[in-house]
């Protein structure tokens, strides 16, 4: 069951990382100027926000867990089941970023969960 453990890390750390980076970027403010020097300034500003570092560390952890999962299971199994991060993203958005999630989006999340269950059952 190591693959289930690694899947949990991929989904939880990946989504957690994205939420932390989103929080950091909201702190930095909207980027409206895309000239190279301005982009570098935004990156430097983002690096000063602790949430950014936590986010990047979590994303790195998710990447290495994905590699570990790919060493155990087929890629046609691993990549589809990591779509569970859409469910984690919707939950994280609601509880962590206080976003409103539409009914339609919940339907999509439910479909993703059903699909992941089918893929998991189809592996057996």
């Amino acid at each position, binding site marked *: 069951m*190591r*693959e289930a453990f*690694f899947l949990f890390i991929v989904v939880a750390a990946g989504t957690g990382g994205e939420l932390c980076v989103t929080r950091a970027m909201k702190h930095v403010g909207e980027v409206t100027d*895309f000239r190279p020097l301005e982009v570098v300034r935004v990156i430097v500003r983002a690096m000063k926000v602790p949430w950014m570092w936590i986010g990047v560390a979590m994303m790195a952890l998710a990447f290495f867990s*994905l*590699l*570990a*999962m*790919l*060493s*155990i299971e*087929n*890629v*046609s*199994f*691993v*990549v*589809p089941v990591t*779509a569970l991060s*859409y469910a984690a993203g*919707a939950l994280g958005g609601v509880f962590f*970023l*206080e*976003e*409103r*999630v*539409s009914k*339609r*989006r919940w*339907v*999509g*999340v*439910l*479909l*993703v*969960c*059903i*699909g*992941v*269950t*089918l*893929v*998991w*059952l*189809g*592996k057996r």
Partner: protein
Amino acid sequence: MMTQESCEIGTFGYEDLSPTLADARLAELCFHGFQPMRSGVYSFAWRVPCMTSSSGLHFKTYCMILIMVVFGPLGNVLLGKGMKNVGSAAIWAPSELPHIFIRIFTSGYIWLGVASLLTFFVAYMLILSWADFSYVQPASSVAYLVVALLGYFYLGEKIAPLHWAGIGVICLGVFVVGNTPPRTTEAR
């Protein structure tokens, strides 16, 4: 210079449509990147970012989506192939981790996979600079199917019918998730 400014390109009346049909028409316009605005009780004006009115931009958008849909799954498949050579994590012991990291970082397939994923990421960032997230994300749901096809044909993986059905439902789910308004935290 390209800007995000929008220009009005036309209106359509709503008297001859039932409310349901009018709503469906509006939803369709939104999906194609138009920004319908109510201009009267029975009519809508629709706005479209000026730059999307050129056919060149449509071509560029389709090219970028193609790059995303090919290089994202290809990157994952190459990572998968590389990791199969490294050995299964099901039997990794903590003391072996330094050796495993060395094997990962000296694998050509892993670096090709990372390069492919970086190409995907750059295309994704570029396309988001002119197209809406709610337009790009449903298109990228096909990537889950492409990954399975690459696994099946290129790596010779066995995929059961239930597994294919699951992948289809996931694609549909991701399409539905992506095809919803990307911003919900504030009213315009």
